């Protein structure tokens, strides 16, 4: 059931990535090397293609298999970051029990912490973390407060959008955009954009 959730989320993510191709590609062409769209689409495709193998696996097994597979297929900067997310999530406490809002909040928190550890970036560095860190916090707070699913979903999407927008006025400290210095100001970070788009799609698909 929760493994199905993962596949369903990946399918929603893929559709959202494709629907926002030109926007994501445009941003990485502007302040990166133009391949972010391709990298994350490859990631989503990989998870979906893995579905038959995941059948019957526990969430921890499925998340770990996904992590290993993503690690060897995405490449680039996003590959290690995204696969670190899944690897950490596979070890999240209670991941094999039925999922609650708290489970989702916890796996997100663990996953985002792993991304920070791997990439050494933090809030305000104009990366995907400017979306992911606030989203993890919103999930945690909402779950703790027992917020209902619809309200929590809306808040998460809003938080992701704000995080994404916040990258526009920043200079980058990590990733290719960092080499641009001041010239990166005015352009949203592609990884932040794709994270927002994916999160929104997953929330909406729920």
């Amino acid at each position, binding site marked *: 059931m929760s493994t199905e959730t993962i596949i369903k989320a990946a399918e929603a993510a893929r559709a959202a990535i494709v629907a926002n191709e030109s926007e994501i*590609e445009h941003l990485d*062409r502007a*302040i*990166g*090397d*133009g*391949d972010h769209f*391709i*990298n994350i689409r490859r990631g989503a495709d990989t998870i979906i293609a893995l579905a038959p193998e995941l059948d019957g696996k526990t969430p921890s097994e499925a998340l770990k298999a996904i992590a290993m597979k993503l*690690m*060897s*297929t*995405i*490449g*680039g*900067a*996003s*590959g*290690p*970051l995204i696969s670190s997310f899944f690897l950490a999530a596979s070890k999240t406490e209670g991941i094999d029990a039925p999922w609650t809002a708290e489970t989702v909040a916890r796996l997100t928190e663990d996953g985002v912490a792993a991304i920070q550890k*791997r*990439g*050494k*970036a933090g809030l305000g*560095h104009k990366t995907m973390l400017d979306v992911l860190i606030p989203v993890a916090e919103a999930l945690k707070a909402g779950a703790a407060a027992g917020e209902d699913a619809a309200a929590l979903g809306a808040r998460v999407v809003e938080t992701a959008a704000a995080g994404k927008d916040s990258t526009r006025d920043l*200079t*980058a*400290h*990590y*990733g*290719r955009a*960092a*080499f*641009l*210095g*001041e*010239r990166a100001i005015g352009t949203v970070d592609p990884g932040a954009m794709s994270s927002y788009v994916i999160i929104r799609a997953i929330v909406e698909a729920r």
Partner: protein
Amino acid sequence: MKKLINAADAVLAESLAGFGKAHADLVEVSQEPRYVIRRGGGRPGKVALVSGGGSGHEPMHAGFVGTGMLDAACPGEVFTSPTPDQMIVAAEAVDGGAGTLFIVKNYAGDVMNFEMAAEMLDGESATILTNDDVAVESSTHSQGRRGVAATVIVEKIVGAAAERGDDLAALKALGDRVNAASGTMGVALSSCTVPAAGRPTFDLGPDEIEMGVGIHGEPGRRRETIRPVDALVEDMFRAIQKEIAPEGEVLLLVNGMGGTPLLELYLVYEAVAKLCAKEGLTIARSLVGNYCTSLEMQGCSVTLTKLDAEMKTLWDAPVHTAALRW
């Protein structure tokens, strides 16, 4: 997009297959996972040199696999870092029991993927991060400078030292020293086009150039109007000079980005040579050609490496790879 390809997603596999056939005397190619190793694999007792990075920079790195240079290279998708599984399998295939030295260009993706490989690899390893691109002032970012054409020089010199039997720690120190002694600055006259993207990475006006461009088409210091090459080269030279303060003997690498006629590269060489003469620098060694490219980009980069006696000896040591041989 016009390219000599069959399909964007088959580019790497087919090109690598051709590379393997054209140089079957020198290398072995694996497609799954993707890597290129010296024919026959590892040499017992020798530190294994493993490099890699996104494709599109050919001959770097696969063209530098062979005697006196790399033991293995891991090509990623075009402009996309390879993945840890490639690096691990390649490193195991060339393991000589004396440890693995990764040579990695300083990009977030490459750094993280090689880091994961190093963590997962059994046995000792060390990593040299090249970061010779002086285009972007390092103060503005935590990632540090980009690794570009001096990687070729690091791979040649460290490769020669590995061949003569230096140990892992010595090689790591040598590579760091060569990297620190090197500075590179590039300029683009046209963009490159990533096959999977299908259109130019950036757009330049008919008279515009990108000064300080990265080898993935990343923007550099500024967009400006084309000027005579002497003026462009003077700016590039000064930027390098400021960072590495060369004196005495240098190695000069005039590197084509992929779409620049050799006629122009030698003209650039002449422009740099005039400046070196003016500054009292001796070009003790040099290399002119396409070594660290950016697909079909027109433009070039200039690299200066401050040479010491050991580096010269190692530079002159025999090398036998697809792209460098003496």
